[in-house]
């Protein structure tokens, strides 16, 4: 069943669906406003410039991969290997910085990310594996490789102070990570909404068999989708390494959960067939704001596992409710 709201050309399907969509985007904004309000009333440190910048940067790092994940979910799949890939690409970038300059380091990380994404895609298309099993296996492999290449040690980034600009630099007064995520959002939005490729992604996620029959090159499109996810994981790996300036093989544990959670919270249905990149962006902001507020309240880091898990299950339950609502409204119209 295709949720009509985000399928290009499906915008004319009326009433309840469009209300639902409005409510969803508004829902996240309302939640965000509530969290901001509560945090700023109860604490003093929340509305400082430094803290807001921090929230934006943390949101950006998750959102970059979340945007890629939105593509994968829209295509009816998902990628569980992004956390391990984030670690691996952060390590590749940091290691390359010791021998070459920044451009080569960035290129190296992106190449590794894209290649691993392609490998995921090959496993899924050539071996016809369910995406989550293939990427689950890759998650383990890439985690092992990350730990192996670093031998379990940390890698420091020293000697290239300008690398940190990727994290704390400014363009037109905006933090660089925010600029990166906004540019990526605009680009991917364009691809998803206004190119044949974007329409094919939604078509495959909506009904893979119908997509095959209508002549869409499913294999190539799927490959490309997972390559995009790999690239976005690499970008967030670079951003994370620039933020931490010290990386190790354990980075990014649970990152796949966060990215899936923001995509689903943002209104992208796990059923596939549609994707809301803007929703993903807003949801990442909500998640980062919540984390920051909890930090300021000095809630122990352990609780973050708990609330992330509950948030994910709650978001998925909302997705279920929404789908059955849409289904029943469609039935009624018939």
């Amino acid at each position, binding site marked *: 069943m295709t949720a009509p709201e985000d399928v290009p050309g499906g915008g004319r399907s009326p009433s309840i669906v469009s209300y639902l969509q409005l409510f969803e985007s508004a829902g996240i904004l309302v939640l965000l406003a509530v969290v901001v309000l509560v945090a700023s009333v109860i604490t003093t440190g929340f509305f400082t410039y430094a803290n807001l910048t921090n929230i934006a940067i943390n949101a950006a790092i998750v959102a970059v991969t979340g945007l890629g994940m939105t593509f994968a979910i829209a295509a009816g799949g998902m990628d569980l290997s992004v956390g391990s890939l984030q670690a691996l690409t952060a390590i590749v970038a940091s290691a390359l910085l010791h021998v070459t300059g920044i451009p080569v380091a960035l290129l190296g990380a992106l190449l590794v990310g894209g290649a691993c994404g392609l490998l995921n895609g090959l496993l899924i298309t050539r071996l016809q*594996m369910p995406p989550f099993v293939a990427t689950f296996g890759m998650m383990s492999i890439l985690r092992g490789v990350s730990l192996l290449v670093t031998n379990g040690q940390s890698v420091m980034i020293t000697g290239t102070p300008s690398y940190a600009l990727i994290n704390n630099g400014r363009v037109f007064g905006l933090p660089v990570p925010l600029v990166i995520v906004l540019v990526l959002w605009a680009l991917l939005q364009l691809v998803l909404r206004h190119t044949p490729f974007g329409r094919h992604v939604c078509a495959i996620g909506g009904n893979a068999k119908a997509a095959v029959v209508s002549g869409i090159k499913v294999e190539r499109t799927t490959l490309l989708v997972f390559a995009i996810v790999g690239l976005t994981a690499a970008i967030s790996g670079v951003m994370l390494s620039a933020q931490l300036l010290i990386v190790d*093989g354990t980075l990014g544990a649970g990152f796949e959960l966060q990215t899936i959670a923001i995509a689903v919270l943002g209104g992208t249905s796990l059923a596939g067939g549609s994707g809301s990149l803007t929703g993903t962006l807003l949801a990442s902001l909500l998640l980062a704001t919540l984390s920051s507020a909890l930090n300021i309240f000095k809630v122990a880091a*352990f609780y973050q*596992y708990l609330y*992330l*898990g509950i948030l994910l299950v709650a978001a*998925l339950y909302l997705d279920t409710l929404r789908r059955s609502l849409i289904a029943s409204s469609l039935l009624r119209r018939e």
Partner: protein
Amino acid sequence: MTRASTAPQAEPGREPPFLPRAHDFLGGLVRFALRYYIHVLLLAALVILSAVNANFRTSANFENILLQSSFAGIGAAGMTFLIIAGAFDLSVAGMLGACGIVLALLSPQLGGLPAAIVVVVLGMGLGFLNGLVVTRMRIPAFIATLGMMNVYLGVAFIATRGQVLPIDSELLMDLGTNSLLGFIPFPFLVMVAIYVAAAFLLRRTIFGRQVRAVGSSPNAARTAGIPVDRVRIAAFVLVGFCTGVAGVLLTGELSSANAIMATGYELSAIAIVVVGGTSLKGGSGTVSGSFTGALFFSVINNALNIFGVGAYWQYVISGVLLITAIGVQVVRGYVREEESARERAT
């Protein structure tokens, strides 16, 4: 409901990638290897490793292999049911940590055995909770249980503040570390008992048949009057039971518990089941395959240790084995397709 009908479907018009002709010797060999490949692999690994390494073929090492196979193996027994029923549980690592911690907290007050029983019941309760989330909230199992894993881990961390909790119950430590006749570890005995019961449950009971029916086609099962949701929930409870038992044994073996004591447990359990030949599409699978798979993984990890290969390789090997096993399933699907086509032709 035949097994062939639930094997990975070969798409029409696509040639199997690397399969020799059926009638010649090589083709027969490939087919034999595909059916019994995990048993062949285990045997080959045992023979080769025993031949090349003197440290491998000691009785102490074999005892160790049996011991190490039992923790993930017990979890894999429950997981076999769940995967045949067409679902997954990725929360078992968090569940096992939570069970271990509750055991460490309760055993001083209740004594070893009552605490162990409470913990196994707790495991079943958590499995029931997973089942409810998956069936009642209608969330895909793997993503729902990924969320629940974080919930369990979070609770376990909060309860212990991230500390390691020691246990002092003699009984539990004996259970985790001692052996029958000096070479059959108790956890392995428990594992054998669980697998015998599981094989009986899957092959000889109505419930086993229902599990297979639900996995191979939920809609057909529902039409046939099988309570699909209840069967799925029961499979989740079985996973919880096995995880609880494994939690008791692992806590006994380590003589302590902490939240992350079982990191990667879900991967090992699922990899064992898949390597053992259970189809990820649900509906078909064998308990004995999982048993062999558990031993195989234990032998491989043991060999890695003996040859001084770092622990990090185990992540890589588990992942590669998982992906390879699914590749084998795909090829198997082609073989079945081809065989049934030939049967129809004759």
